[in-house]
Every structure is written in C-alpha cells, then in structure tokens.
C-alpha cells in the first residue's frame, strides 16, 4: 500500500516535470512572448535560485544546521565552472591583465578533440563539457565544505551561522587576491564561457530552437529530484531526526558528526552547482555579488517558502524573483499599478516594500507559504479544510 503511494507520487512528480519542461520550451519558441522579455530572465533566475534555496533548505530546514555560507559555496562553484570552461582562444583576452591564464585547456574543447568541434559533435562536446564543469563545481564546493565542516560543524546553532558566514567572506577575499590573478582573474570578472544562451540551436546565424530557459529548468529539476530522493531515503529521515532532537537522534544510533557532515557537503555540492548556474545566468563570474547579503536573500526566500518544505522553497523563489525583477519594478520607476507618484516611487523603494513584506512574513506568518508540508500534502489538507467549512455552512 505504502509502496504504491510512493510510486504514484514519484510518477506525478515526473509527469509534472515533463509538463513544465514542455511548457518552457513552448513558451520560448512559440513567439507569443519575445525572447528578450523579462519573463525569461525571471524564469532563468528563478530556476537557479530555487536550486540554491532548496540546497539551503536541506541544511537549515531538514537537518537543522543553521549555516550562512551558501554564497561562499556558490562562489566556489561559479569560479570553478568559469575557470574550466573559458575557451582557450579567448583566454588571453579575458586574462589580459595577467598576461594570459595559468590554465591552458577548457573542458568542452577536451571533449571536442574526441567528438569534433562543429555540428552535432560540437553540441555533444559542449553538453558534456558543461555537465562536467557543473559537477566539478559542485565537487569543489563540497570538498571545501568538508574542510570547513571539520572544525565548525561541532558548533551550536548561532556560532555555526557566524562561522560559515565568516568562511564565505574569507573565500571572497582569497578569490579577489591579485596573486591568484592568472587563475581567478583577480577582482576582474571572468567571462566568455558557455552560458545558457550557448545552448540555443542556431542555423545560418539565426536561432531555430531556443533552449536557454529550458537548460536551467532541466538542471534544476534533476538536482532537486536528487535532493528529494535523498530526503525520502533513510539518510533524509536521519537528518530530520537530528533536526528534531540531536540527543534523541544520537540515542537512536545516528552518527551525528557523519550525518551532519554529509548534509553539509551535499548542500554545498548543490550550492556549488547553483553558483555555476548563476555564473551562466549572469554571463560572468566575479566575487562581488556573492556577499553575505546574497545568503540573507536566499535565507529569506527559504523562510517565505516555509522552512522544511522543498516545494515551498521553489514556489517562494519564483514569487520572490518575479516580484523583485518584474512585478514590483514599477515601484522604482514612478508608476505602480495605476498610481503615479515619482516622488515616492523612486529608485530603491521596491526593496523597502519588499523588506517590509518579508518582515511581515517573518513576524506574522512564521510558517511561510507551505509550512513544513509539501505541495500534494498541502493541497489535500486545504481541500479537507474547505470541505469542513462547507459542511459547517450547511
């Protein structure tokens, strides 16, 4: 009985993902919405951020480790990906301040030497190169998470938060160091690596099939699916046990340090991939955006969505990104809905409104959108609630 229920929910998830992906491809290529429309920026950024938010939720919401190092691990991922995939012929121009790069290969060209660099072979080597780049980005982030986890995972909640926050700041300083210039390009940005729009299929200089929004969606869906599988496994149950009561969990035979480290490394692995995807989204990699402010942003997304709910994090991310990038834009430009007030609605007002909304959520709707329930569960309880209301009315 339980097995069939599990299978059916897995099937539902699969169908939902396929429908979503098909919808994204259709939106991009139907011509209903021009490809430069803000909608696609929102969708891409939303896909990237939702992966990071889910990875943070795995740590903060499911394991109860309050870590604020997400931006640092994203930075590691972004740089790893960018450094390894800048094509060799543009390396000199990207690293012009340091007289060329210290690394003389790029992943997609390594595959290119096997599959060829043009046509279908070129496409295969691009896909494989980017995939390997993303996986390596995750691995580097996970490796550093392991190193920093050794001393800091023993710490209690808020000490852990401040230590991981500090670690992220250290990384930022190291990556901007002039001495590492030939590898990290110092404080300058690394660019010209394959981005989401590299996946658009072109023929004769014209794009015949847009895939630039499809690719981040696909990547995020795969990664989130892995995280969901993990959470539903025995490891996931151990994580939740640690969150609910460390001492009781230990008494039940759960190896605390090992499971905490596992959760920390896996979360960082996906944050690293998220960072690499963020670099692909923004077409450059530099240390500047990966500040503690970014971690706070993601944390607030997780809170809005509901701590301990994967679907909540995803819904929260898309709501947040859509509001920040699109729906509330008018608050910065003088006109919102039908109200014109250039004096009040000037640059920065959007973020003020936004932070007020966030404070309201934090203070009065502490459970966020989903609480710690997932979407199907929430829908069911909502249905039951409505049914009860109807009964009462009758």
């Amino acid at each position, binding site marked *: 009985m339980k097995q069939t229920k599990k299978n059916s929910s897995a099937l539902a998830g699969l169908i939902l993902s396929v429908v979503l992906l098909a919808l994204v491809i259709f939106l991009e290529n139907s011509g209903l919405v021009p490809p430069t429309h803000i909608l696609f920026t929102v969708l891409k950024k939303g896909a990237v951020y939702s992966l990071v938010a889910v990875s943070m939720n795995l740590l903060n919401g499911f394991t109860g480790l*309050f870590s604020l190092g997400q931006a640092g691990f994203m930075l590691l991922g972004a740089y790893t990906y960018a450094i390894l995939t800048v094509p060799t012929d543009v390396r000199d121009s990207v690293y012009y301040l340091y007289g060329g790069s210290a690394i003389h290969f790029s992943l997609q060209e390594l595959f290119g030497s096997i599959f060829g660099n043009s046509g279908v072979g070129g496409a295969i080597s691009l896909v494989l190169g980017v995939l390997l780049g993303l996986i390596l980005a995750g691995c580097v982030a996970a490796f550093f998470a392991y190193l920093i986890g050794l001393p800091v995972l023993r*710490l209690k*909640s808020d000490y852990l938060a401040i230590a991981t926050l500090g670690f992220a700041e250290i990384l930022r300083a190291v990556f901007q160091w002039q*001495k590492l210039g030939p590898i990290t390009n110092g404080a300058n940005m690394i660019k010209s690596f394959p981005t989401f729009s590299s996946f658009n299929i072109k023929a004769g200089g014209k794009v015949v099939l847009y895939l630039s929004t499809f690719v981040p969606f696909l990547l995020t869906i795969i990664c989130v699916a892995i995280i969901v599988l993990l959470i539903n496994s025995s490891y996931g149950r151990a994580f939740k046990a640690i969150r609910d009561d460390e001492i009781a969990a230990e008494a039940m035979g759960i190896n605390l340090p090992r499971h905490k480290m596992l959760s920390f490394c896996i979360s960082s692995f996906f944050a690293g991939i998220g960072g690499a995807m963020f670099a692909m989204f923004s077409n450059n990699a530099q240390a500047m955006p990966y500040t503690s*402010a970014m971690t706070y942003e993601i944390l*607030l997304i997780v809170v809005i969505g509901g701590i301990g709910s994967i679907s909540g994090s995803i819904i929260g991310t898309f709501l947040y990104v859509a509001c920040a990038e699109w729906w509330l834009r008018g608050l910065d430009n003088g006109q919102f809905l039908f109200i014109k007030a250039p004096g009040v609605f000037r640059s920065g007002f959007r973020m003020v409104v*936004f*932070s007020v909304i966030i*404070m309201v959520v*934090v203070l009065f709707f502490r459970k966020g959108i989903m609480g710690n329930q997932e979407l199907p569960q929430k829908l069911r309880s909502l249905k039951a609630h409505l049914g009860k209301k109807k009964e009462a009315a009758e």
Partner: protein
Amino acid sequence: MAFFLSVLLSGISVGGQYALIAIGYTMVYGILRLINFAHGDVFMVAGLMLIYLSAAIPLYLAIPLMILLTVLLGFVIERAAYKPLRSAPRMSVMISAIGVSYLLQNTATYITGGQPMSYPSIPVLSDMVQVGPATTSMVTVVTPILVLVLVILLVQLINRTKIGMAMRAVAKDFETSQLMGIKINSVISATFIIGSFLAAIGSLLYFSNYTYITPSAGAMPGLKAFVAAVFGGIGSIPGAVIGAFIIGICENFVKVLPFEGASNFVDAFTFALLIVILAVKPTGLFGEKATDKV
C-alpha cells in the same frame, strides 16, 4: 618606530570603536541568546542620521538628538521585531534580526538614493595631534579614553544598580527571573537602549575617520564587533572590550603586512581568527562554560 606607533594607535582607536559596538552584541546575546544582526545597521543608521541632522541644525544639538533617535530606534526594533517572537525558536528570532537588517539597509539605500553620503567633520575629533613621533587625529586619542570611561560606568551599572542586578539575573536564567518578579521586557528594553546608546557613540567616533557612509557601511564593523564579542567570551563585557581591542590592533597590523594585496585580507583575517577561536576555545577568553540540560 613612528610607523609602528601610528599603526598601533589607529589599531587601538578602531578597537575601541569595535568595543562600543561589541558591548551591544554581547549584552543582547547574554540575555536573549540572539545574534542581533541588525546592530551593525543601527550603527550605520546612527551615522546617516547625524549627516541629515547636521545639515539642518548645529552640531551641538545634532549629536545629542542623534544619540536619542538611535536609542529610540534600538528600542523600537526590539519591541516590534523581537518581542513578538519571545517564545519562538531561536532560529526564527535570528531570521527576524536578519530581516530587520535587510529593512534598515534597503531603507537607507532608498533615502540616500544609494549615493555615498559625506560625513560632517566634527570640530575637536577631526583635529590633528602629535603623539610622540606620530601624528594622528584627535579621535584616535579620545576613543580609548572614552571607551574606558564608558565601560567602567557600565560595569558599575551592572554590578551596583537594581536594573543591573536584574540584567544579570535574566542572563543567568530567563524563566526563573521571571518567576522572581523581574519584568523581563523592561530589562530587555534597557539592554537594547544601552547597546544602541553605545553604538551611537561608536558611530560618531568610527565614521569621523571616514569621509563618507554607504548603506552597507555598518555590516562589516558589525560582524567584526560580533567576532570580538565571541573572542572575549560572549556575554562578558570586559571580554568583549578586550577582544575588540585585540582585533582592532591585529587588523591594522595585517593591513600593513609587507605583501601585495594584504589589505584585502583584513576582513578575512578577522573571520579566520573567529573560526580558530570557535574550534579551539568556543567559550572565548572570559566566557562561562554553558552546560546543556537534557
């Protein structure tokens, strides 16, 4: 020698300024077990308020008014953002603190239009003086003295007065002190008022070394002051002060280390120090060892 002395002096001065912020962190943590992430931003807002006030009224009125408003801000933040969450899990309160910090920074960005605002020069503090072979500004000399005076006063307040005794009791055991008839809300408010008052004075001293303020100017000194509080043993006021001086001095020496790009590592050094302390001696220099009850 003159160089060494001037680095040491500016280290002591910065350390003193961190100390004033760190006390706010350590007192709040001692009582509420909360890292008040918004404290650094209160410090920044204090700086901005002085800029706007000094444009309208003379400095001798602007400074007391700024201190008063900062205290009010601290009080309001506690009442609005932390008090409703008193019985909530600690993580929620910390998230609320991050939310307040976000709100303060965004509001500051909106009001200033994101432009760096130039800080007014305060007559006595900005004057240059000669200390031995080194020339430095008056604020460098004033800071450590002022910090010492304030800390002695504060320690007297905590050890000798009724409200101080109540603070110690609440820090020791939240619930029992409530049972003993201590009005914890007023004690917590008093803590925030003292913390904000010291942060306002700290901002006066800190920003007079800088020509302008940006909305994110408070974040870094705030975090460093927190590191100082952890270093000294969180909850301990003398610990926070000593930790802040050590961090201020070390930081200024790191800045002048003879290798290229050393100044990039000032912040990184502070956090590396934090991680080392947490790994080696999590209770800090003077912290009490906390035991967990099962």
